[in-house]
């Protein structure tokens, strides 16, 4: 079983309580000025976006085969069996490949620090591990953000659509996107209208590189034999030529 978040844009009133809860859980400053920033950054790990009269949340999608965990050269990012994708700042060397590779542009960097870290939502791994709700779900006054088991949340989302088909765009974002995410979205309108990326592949991205990296042992073994063989042949030719040279 894996934990997930269901965000229902139709229930969200844009109160930004989730932002405040998140800032508190991370010990980050939060005031009106920061609340007005509608973009995630190293000091704001979730953001409520306004799209006309509708709202949407930005946070880490914690999908099944995370791109960030796959690209990280030091394995500082890991997908836990509990569901969240967690980050070990002690390993990170700051190559920022995770920022570059994330299709949702979630990881952010402490650009102005001398000893910077990457920052992103970790779906309150510690809290969930202790059986608590994520900070954002706990403070949400309308139930727009709900925390629970992915299967149950998925069933609930389907039920909501079935009960009020007129109120929802009939799909759930995150079922198939990049191989299935742990943050699911419901919306009244097509997802691109609330700022979600609909051009992401429906397969897990790490496969794209693994297809090539997987060939490494083949390239090394075949290459050694081939190059060694070529050297052996050409070198022998040279030796023969040197020996026969004076006789001519």
């Amino acid at each position, binding site marked *: 079983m894996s934990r997930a978040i269901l965000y229902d844009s139709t229930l969200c009133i844009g109160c930004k309580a989730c932002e405040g809860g998140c800032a508190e859980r991370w010990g980050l400053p939060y005031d009106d000025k920061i609340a007005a920033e509608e973009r995630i*950054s190293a000091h704001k790990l979730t953001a409520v976006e306004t799209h006309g009269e509708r709202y949407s949340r930005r946070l880490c999608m914690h999908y099944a085969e995370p791109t960030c965990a796959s690209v990280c050269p030091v394995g500082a990012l890991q997908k836990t069996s509990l569901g969240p994708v967690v980050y070990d700042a002690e390993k*990170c*060397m*700051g190559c920022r490949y995770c920022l570059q590779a994330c299709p949702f542009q979630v990881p952010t960097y402490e*650009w102005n620090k001398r000893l*910077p870290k990457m920052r992103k939502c970790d779906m309150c791994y510690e809290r969930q591990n202790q059986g608590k709700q994520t900070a954002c779900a706990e403070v949400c006054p309308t139930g727009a953000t709900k925390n629970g088991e992915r299967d149950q949340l998925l069933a609930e989302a389907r039920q909501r659509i079935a009960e009020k088909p007129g109120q929802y765009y009939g799909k759930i974002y995150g079922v198939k996107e990049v191989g299935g995410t742990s943050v699911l979205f419901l919306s009244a309108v097509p997802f691109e209208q609330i700022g979600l990326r609909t*051009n992401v*592949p429906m397969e897990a991205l790490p496969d794209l*590189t693994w297809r090539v990296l997987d060939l490494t042992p083949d390239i090394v073994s075949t290459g050694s034999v081939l190059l060694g063989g070529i050297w052996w042949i050409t070198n022998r030719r040279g030796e023969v030529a040197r020996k026969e040279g004076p006789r001519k």
Partner: protein
Amino acid sequence: MKLKLPKITVWRAIFAVILLSGLYATCLRVLYGLGGATNLSDRFPWGLWIGFDVLCGVGLAAGGFTLVAIVHIFNIERYKPILRPAILTAFLGYSLVVVALLYDLGRPDRIWHPLIMWNPHSVMFEVAWCVTLYTTVLFLEFIPVVFEKFGWHKPLGWIHNISVPLMIAGVLLSTLHQSSLGSLYLIVPEKLYPLWYSPILPLLFYISAIAVGLSMTIFESWHSSRAFGRALELPLLASMARVLAVLMSAYLWIRFLDLAHQHAFPLLLRNRTETWLFALEIALMAVPTALLYQRKVRMSPGALYACAVMVLFGFIANRLNVAVTGMEAGSGAHYIPKWTEVAVTLSIVGAGFAIFRVIAQYFPIFEAHSQQHAPRKMAETEADSVAVG
């Protein structure tokens, strides 16, 4: 002995200005972090230092493994006179890439982390290992020059004993990471502009690296012949230019096929920055390729040099297009490097030229092999128009 101040020339003055600005930029980088020294952002995390210093730097150093393969594995000995400068370029190139990484990494003090904290699924992990190992290989391939200079025959023998496996390892490591620099971008299909994104990016990076390695060899031979008043190995360079022309033709043809398979041609009709920079990149590669098919061009030092430079710029345009131009629209960000980024990059390039010059002056980089090939013999081969040029 009279103490003499170095003569002030225009080039030396420019070099000094670049180094001083680089030094100042370094202070800013250390004091104010990446945010203070670069125009990078969350949406555009890789800029000039990755796009130029790393992607181009590693590519421009590809002449090392290409010539080692030609001379020692394929045993085409007549290229030997240009092998050492190519190895020196490669060794310096890789060392400077590591220096550039120290600027670019958020935590340069942890540059060694990938060596003990493994993630074999990461292309970056593979690149880190290959670059570390290959820089070591290059060091070992270069160090005989130092041993020769001081007449240390014993260590020279040790290196000689392991030279064949060393060279094979060098070629393999280069093959892996030159292509892997392209693989780095396989994971951003929705961000990289379709004129550059391709599932065969690793192959394209590999072929173009070999081509630019050859161009770089022509480039540095031309410059060193002027700097040290040596005779230019024209017949050698001309026959290498032949290989370059064929390689570039194959590369351009594969690019064309790839764009066709991806149905990317309609994109060329759009009036966008991407289209024009793509056209520039292709022109910089296609024009010298076409020219190099003419014997007249190959046998004229000036024209040959101009073609090599065009290929170098075409290659740099390609890498910068992949790293910067192609990533802007998909990332929703606009990036122009800050002056500090440019200053550091120019300083690194300048330092590369200066160190090369100093080493070439004091160590047997050029003379060792040209002594073996008597000038008379060179003249003979030059006249033999069927074999060369």
